[in-house]
């Protein structure tokens, strides 16, 4: 038998039948309030049940307000959606962590937090950033609402096995750079469609040294490189994160599971369909200047000149992006006037991210004219951060300390960037209008977002 990649192994362990497009079993189905109502309605219409409620978990994250959570919510449509989710979960027997519950949070934050995300699993959610869970050596990907209904009804999906791509990250990144900067650098290098059709496995010394939180950030953004998902083979870092988590195996089961998981890695001579090797030695903090995450440059650099781009499609996209962003070629990144700073999202809303930002913020004050908010990824993270006093560091500096949710990453809960103004955001997408109509987004790491809020201009640190 040919030596296999990790993805090929996990895939093979889940195939039920078929060739080409195969029927695969889904080990965990994450559900949120936005992409599921129509799926539950479909079940009701056809008289179907949820086949495996014990492999399904729901939370409310996209719609929930992050300021006041006084009920009933002022947002009538949002309120209707949240109430319907509670009704659906009751009716179909699905575990739900609704707004104002201790387990609530961004769906991709609470899965790993609870220990529901484990190596060797297949995990899906009606959300493209499901790729986050790949950090644990799981095959995890976003699906559409028809597929949500399909998984609810059958606990399976009909899918073609993705092509395999190895992204090997060599070198030592600079001390100021984070996993977010690595993610942006990868997309900058391979493009927003560089991973199309593939599931990326990240390997290399940069990965070996990366924390679990950082790996989640990186896998989270694999989708922004066009990939179906990203994944990283489990190692000691993974096991240290998982040990003792509520739903992870305990005691003797833990030892047995851990021994099995240690074998979940690509064979040394496994053949990948595509191989990319990037030397990230000395990589510094990154920032997006355009309207897709591939339009990235060094934060201490300048806006590139579209005329210098060889590819006509990329050139035209760059011209369009600069027009939308209101920037000119050659403009220093540090000159871009920032009005909003957002720290949060499934990309960078975990405790490690908040700690990194707080470390920069401590003892400083948010610059005049800047609205800065911190939105923890989950209620538990919020409480842990408060136990560490991080909220006081932020509020003393002039940041708003909010309740957990997707918030300004998708801007559908009322948290929006003012039209035509620039935001430094730790989220994952800088598309036109993503953070509100006319919003001009610059994706950065939590450290850079913090430094930007304090210095009033795009910056990676205060020493600049």
């Amino acid at each position, binding site marked *: 038998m040919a030596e296999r990649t990790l993805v090929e192994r996990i895939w093979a362990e889940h195939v039920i039948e078929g060739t080409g497009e195969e*029927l695969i079993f889904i080990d*965990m189905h994450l559900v949120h309030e936005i992409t599921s109502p129509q799926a539950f*309605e479909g079940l009701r219409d056809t008289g179907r049940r949820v086949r495996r409620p014990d492999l399904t978990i729901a939370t409310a994250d996209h719609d929930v307000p992050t300021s006041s959570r006084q009920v009933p919510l002022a947002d009538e449509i949002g309120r209707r959606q949240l109430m319907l989710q509670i009704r659906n979960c009751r009716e179909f027997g699905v575990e739900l962590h609704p707004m104002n519950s201790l387990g609530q949070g961004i769906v991709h934050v609470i899965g790993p937090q609870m220990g529901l995300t484990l190596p060797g699993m297949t995990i899906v959610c009606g959300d*493209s950033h499901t790729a986050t869970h790949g950090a644990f050596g799981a095959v995890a990907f976003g*699906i559409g609402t028809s597929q949500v209904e*399909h998984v609810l009804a059958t606990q399976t999906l009909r899918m073609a096995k993705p092509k395999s791509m190895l992204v090997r990250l060599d070198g030592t990144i600079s001390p100021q750079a984070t996993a977010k900067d690595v993610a942006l650098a990868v997309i900058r290098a391979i493009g927003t469609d560089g991973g199309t059709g593939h599931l990326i496995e990240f390997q290399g010394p940069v990965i070996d040294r990366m924390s679990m939180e950082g790996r989640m950030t990186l896998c989270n953004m694999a989708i922004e490189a066009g990939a179906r998902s990203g994944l990283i083979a489990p190692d000691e870092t993974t096991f240290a994160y998982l040990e003792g988590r509520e739903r992870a195996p305990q005691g003797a089961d833990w030892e047995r599971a851990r021994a099995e998981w240690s074998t979940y890695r690509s064979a040394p001579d496994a053949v990948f369909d595509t191989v990319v090797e990037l030397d990230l030695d000395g990589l510094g903090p990154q920032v997006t200047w355009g309207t897709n995450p591939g339009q990235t440059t060094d934060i201490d650099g300048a806006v590139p000149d579209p005329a210098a781009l060889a590819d006509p499609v990329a050139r035209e996209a760059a011209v369009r992006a600069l027009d939308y962003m209101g920037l000119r070629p050659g403009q220093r990144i540090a000159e871009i006037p920032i009005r909003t700073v957002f720290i949060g999202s499934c990309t960078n809303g975990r405790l490690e991210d908040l700690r990194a930002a707080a470390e920069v913020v401590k003892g400083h004050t948010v610059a005049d004219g800047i609205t800065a908010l911190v939105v923890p990824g989950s209620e538990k993270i919020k409480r842990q951060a408060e136990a560490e006093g991080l909220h006081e560091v932020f509020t003393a500096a002039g940041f708003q300390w909010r309740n957990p949710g997707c918030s300004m990453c998708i801007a559908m809960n009322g948290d929006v960037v003012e039209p035509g103004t620039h935001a430094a955001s730790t989220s994952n997408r800088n598309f036109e209008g993503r953070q509100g109509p006319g919003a001009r987004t610059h994706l950065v790491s939590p450290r850079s977002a913090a430094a930007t809020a304090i210095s009033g201009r795009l910056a990676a640190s205060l020493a600049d």
Partner: protein
Amino acid sequence: MDKIDSITGTAVPIDASDVDTDQIIPAVWMKRVERTGFQDGLFAKWRRDPGFVLNQPERRGATILVAGPNFGCGSSREHAPWALRDYGFKAIIAPSFADIFRNNLPNIGLVPVTLDEASCRKVMAAVTADAATPVTVDLVARTVTCTAAGVVDVPFVIEENARYRLINGKDLIDLALDFDEQIRRHEERRPFWMPRTNGQVEPAFELSGVEQ
């Protein structure tokens, strides 16, 4: 779902690369809980420009969208295909699609037509020049024809399973449930360490006054 052999109709050209799902339908539309009625959200932001192609009266009734490379990138929201369907589109022709988006289309009866870039450009030019230009997507023969563009019986790419389902109007869930016995056998041999959920709706914090 309706069975589809071939689609012939006029087309709407969207000549840009990397058109993302936030452009196809803004996130504010995702607050709806209904399964239909998304047509007004389609390209909502761009439609505010009176000159936008969808606002041209002669484009009314078009059933085919001709798009640039990496169409549908971004989120997995099926609201994007729903908006295209509710507007009246039946097929999308592009040199390439974002994966999730392409997979979503056949599930609601839309045909993703991956056509070589040169032919795509010709079709784009022809339908841009004349809104009345007919385009045919033949799902059985797996070809695109747009005579005015000089594109005749040019083969396109589509996953075989998606094509089978579109031609036969089959519901994917019914197809899967035919394998109930095999699913059951898989369930019996899953590893011991696979996690479970508890089926409970977690109560709100005390005094939060949350509606449940």
